């Protein structure tokens, strides 16, 4: 039975955060702490011929310099989130690759030491961008359903266009920080991460030690967005330094280095042929996508289709994909990694189709609704996209829109445009284990796989815990991101809530049963805590686990071993996706052509909303980022040098408060009847999917200019 609606509740950690009391990984203090700094490669490809460290070692405070000699040679494996990273190696595969690690008594000495290392490099030719000579195009497997060529041949209207989404970097405010402590035969790592479990295994693999002696803690993360889902290169380096020096070592990577070390959203190019019949039904799609990848990058190219092919009821879909291999670090997941660029392209094409057909873009979308996953033929467990469109159109006042492009203007000549676009995101689930402990002293402890990076998983867990149990919230401890408390999974892909919250329901039921067994028929009044106290037990603890539909205990085993065991959105009997509709108003200045976004209405179908406040905050954040994607953000590469040129927060322009105005968020809040006991689906990523298309569509409506390459800047509209 799905849960009834949840009431609003404040963020459980809000007060700590505004008071600066929340402790992030870099805030951990250890006696005798040493500071580390890396020496990044100035070239994009080559080999280190010599590392001259004498001058650096003479700097007061520098205690040790790690070089490739301090690491057993490792083979480069395909770069995926959980893959072990190499230690230090002499071969240079990308600009910014760490060549040495300086360890010093102070941060200042470590920085000075890093600058004093002289590196002699034998450079090699490289391909920095997808258009550079030597950038190799490598097809990925197709993702197709039906016969798109035949369907398109029979279509009466075809839109054909190419779209481009630029290279972007995540830039969470918290930098990549690792602190490693080697003591009593155990290695303890504090790092802001979404994937503590993988760090445990991968670092052990790189260093040739037993994962069982490695503990990883990532209790509070200052933004992640997918960047911190990948095991970082620096973690094993810092851990090795701690083992070699016998002292705790900390590294906080400077932002300019992070642009070159962590993953990024790769540039992608989308060529779409979209056909409709005379009634306006979309009948076929031929969609080719190329994405930038690194030479050893494992980030799959064909997943752009997973969402796009399920957005409407289109039976015939040809999804083609390719990687273009370049000499960079590996690109990876950045919030809605595939769906966001894909829906920019696809929902722009749908908008173009609406003008070609002379149909209202909202009505056209609603007429192409589906109850079936056309790719698998299975039913969708729930889909309320039309409700999102309907509610959104009403709140936005869509019916007052003059459909003609460049038809709406303010008295001063400012052009006004209204655009709409939809988004969707798979609802995935990862196996997980949780323990609930109820103590006689009135405290409650819940430990589960998951990471708190601001999205509010602790708040959502508390919402379910306090509804299921009578507890004193001040004495509630929720442990996430801690491998010593519960096995940890990669918390990403919006599967955190679905993978953790139903475990609360299950754990509470198990706990009630355990207490009943303990009481053995005695009737004792009061809370579970009081009952446990009355029978003189210090506490009672239960463990529960959950796998996804169609998974068995092998998936759970994989998870316990630090492996990746996510499943969905196509389950044995149904497919589960989340949906959103965005309505955007833009205003384009008459002369200098600045684009402003005074209001957005976004309505989401994420199943049951468990934590209304953090859920709305997720959507607002997603909309802000979507605006930023559409109008602001792009990382620039000079093909002659490689690397990323605008590698700081002043030059990589993310939207500021002044760029954002009214964002009206709503939820359908209909529980999904099949997916889990609470009826929740996924939310974090779907929030931003489609926003950039809605902005671009609004710019078209305002100006009559169809811009297919992001970001849209004044240069494009003058």
């Amino acid at each position, binding site marked *: 039975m799905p849960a009834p609606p949840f009431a609003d509740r404040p963020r459980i950690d809000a007060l700590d955060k505004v008071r600066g009391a929340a402790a992030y990984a870099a805030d951990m203090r250890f006696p005798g702490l040493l500071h580390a700094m890396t020496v990044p490669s100035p070239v994009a490809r080559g080999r280190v011929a010599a590392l001259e460290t004498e001058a650096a070692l003479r700097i007061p405070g520098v205690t040790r310099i790690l070089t490739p000699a301090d690491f057993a040679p490792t083979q480069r494996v395909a770069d995926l989130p959980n893959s072990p990273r190499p230690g230090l190696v002499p071969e240079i595969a990308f600009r910014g690759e760490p060549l040495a690690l300086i360890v010093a008594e102070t941060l200042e000495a470590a920085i000075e030491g890093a600058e004093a290392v002289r590196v002699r490099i034998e450079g090699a030719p490289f391909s920095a961008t997808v258009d550079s000579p030597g950038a190799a195009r490598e097809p990925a497997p197709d993702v197709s359903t039906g016969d798109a060529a035949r369907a398109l041949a029979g279509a009466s209207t075809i839109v054909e266009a190419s779209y481009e989404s630029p290279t972007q970097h995540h830039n969470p405010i918290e930098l990549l920080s690792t602190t490693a402590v080697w003591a009593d035969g155990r290695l303890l790592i504090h790092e802001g991460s979404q994937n503590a479990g993988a760090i445990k295994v991968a670092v052990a693999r790189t260093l040739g030690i037993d994962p069982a002696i490695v503990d990883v803690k990532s209790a509070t993360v200052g933004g992640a967005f997918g960047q911190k889902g990948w095991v970082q290169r620096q973690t094993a380096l810092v851990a090795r330094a701690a083992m070699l020096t016998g002292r705790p070592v900390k590294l906080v990577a400077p932002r300019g280095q992070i642009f070159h070390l962590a993953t990024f959203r790769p540039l992608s190019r989308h060529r779409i042929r979209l056909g409709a019949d005379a009634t306006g039904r979309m009948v076929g799609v031929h969609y080719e996508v190329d994405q930038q990848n690194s030479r050893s990058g494992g980030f799959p190219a064909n997943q752009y289709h997973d969402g796009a092919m399920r957005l409407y009821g289109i039976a015939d879909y040809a999804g083609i994909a390719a990687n273009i291999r370049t000499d960079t670090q590996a690109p990876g997941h950045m919030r809605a990694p595939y769906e966001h660029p894909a829906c920019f392209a696809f929902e722009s094409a749908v908008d173009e189709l609406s003008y070609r057909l002379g149909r209202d873009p909202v009505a056209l979308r609603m007429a192409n609704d589906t109850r079936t996953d056309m790719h698998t033929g299975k039913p969708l467990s729930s889909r309320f996209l039309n409700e999102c469109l309907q509610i959104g159109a009403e709140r936005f006042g869509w019916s007052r829109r003059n459909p003609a492009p460049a038809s709406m203007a303010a008295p001063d000549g400012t052009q006004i445009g209204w655009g709409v676009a939809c988004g969707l995101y798979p609802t995935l689930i990862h196996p997980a284990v949780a323990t609930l402990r109820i103590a006689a002293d009135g405290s409650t402890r819940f430990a589960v796989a998951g990471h708190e990076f601001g999205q509010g998983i602790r708040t959502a867990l508390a919402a379910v815990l306090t509804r299921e149990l009578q507890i004193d919230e001040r004495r509630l401890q929720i442990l996430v991101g801690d491998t010593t408390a519960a096995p940890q999974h990669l918390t990403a892909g919006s599967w955190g809530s679905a993978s953790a919250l139903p475990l609360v329901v299950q754990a509470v039921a198990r706990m009630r049963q355990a207490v009943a067994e303990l009481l053995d028929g005695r009737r004792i009044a009061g809370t579970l805590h009081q009952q446990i106290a009355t029978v003189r037990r210090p506490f009672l603890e239960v463990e529960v686990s959950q796998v996804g539909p169609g998974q068995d205990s092998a998936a759970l085993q994989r998870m316990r071993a630090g492996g990746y065991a996510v499943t969905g959105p196509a389950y044995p009997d149904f497919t589960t996706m989340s949906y959103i509709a965005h309505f955007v108003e833009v205003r384009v200045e008459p002369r200098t052509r*600045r684009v402003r976004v005074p209001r957005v209405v976004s309505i989401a179908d994420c199943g049951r909303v468990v934590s209304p406040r953090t859920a709305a905050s997720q959507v607002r954040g997603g909309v802000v980022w979507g605006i930023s994607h559409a109008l602001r953000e792009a990382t620039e590469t000079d093909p002659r040098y490689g*690397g990323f040129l605008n590698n700081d927060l002043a030059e990589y322009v993310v939207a500021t408060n002044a760029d954002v105005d009214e964002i009206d968020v709503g939820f359908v809040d209909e529980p999904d009847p099949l997916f889990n006991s609470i009826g929740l689906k996924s939310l974090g990523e779907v929030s931003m999917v489609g926003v950039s298309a809605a902005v671009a569509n609004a710019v078209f409506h305002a100006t009559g200019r169809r811009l297919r390459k992001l970001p849209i800047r004044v240069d494009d509209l003058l």
Partner: protein
Amino acid sequence: MQSFRLIRPRTAQEAVSAAAQGGAASRFIAGGTTLYDLMKLNIERPGQVIDITGIGELHRIETAGEELRFGALAPMSAVATDAVVSRDHPVLAEALAKAASQQLRNMASVGGNLLQRTRCPYFRNGAGGVYPCNKREPGSGCAAIGGLDRSQAVLGTSEACTAVSPGDWPVALVAVDAGIELLGPNGPRSMPVDALYRLPGETPQHEFTLAPGEMITAITVPRRNAGRLSTYHKIRDRESYAFALASAAVVLELEGDRIAQARVALGGVATRPWRAPAAEQMLAGQRLTPELALAAGHAAFRDARAGHHNAFKLELGARTVADALIIAAERRP
């Protein structure tokens, strides 16, 4: 970053003496928002840093007389929100308020602002041999010419350098014929702000005309040059916390419905704060219309030269001037 000696003088004279002793490796530090940045990027490597923030007399803001006088250490935020400045001299207040972020404006001084260095990414990111830059390593070449030059200058460029002079405040000051007061090893002197800046020419490493060890002590603005019919209009890649793609400082003096004198200076488009006399001449004696405003804007860019990705600045810059003129004129009571 390397170790350096820190000196904290109490008077301007002490500071200047310390600078003379420290020689070429000596730097003054005020808010530190430029200097520390460049030290962290390994571009500035001073052996001696003279912290002048303890010199009380340099913090003063005086707005009573015919000449506004801003001590070099007055924070940008304090001048921007000064009651008289924000009420009577919008071009000054806006140039400061539209720069950087509130946090930076609280730290940064109006004197240090005049000496901020270019944001050219090849200049800032290139230390350690990554990108050549004639400003950073004279004679090494210019990576921006033929590179990603969307934000580079279109006015005042040379074969050696196209880096933009990034400041907003200096543009407003040049428009209003402001002056600076200096104290150096040879005593005090003063000069127009306009004379502080060099064109890059063959020697882009030399940006300012200060003598070694010379300190800015104050900025002076003739009050009537910066009246209420003025604005600093700034177009950037986002609505705050970004440097200008194009900006215009404009001050109008009207006689009836005609322009007696227009002051126009440009930012974000030139290698130094750029006065636009051609635009000013076109406007003098005329009645302002949108067409005239745009023509004046285009006149300001008559000698501009674009690179690969920054040609849009010619049109954007002209339209920014036009909008600024219209905004300033609309401030007529």
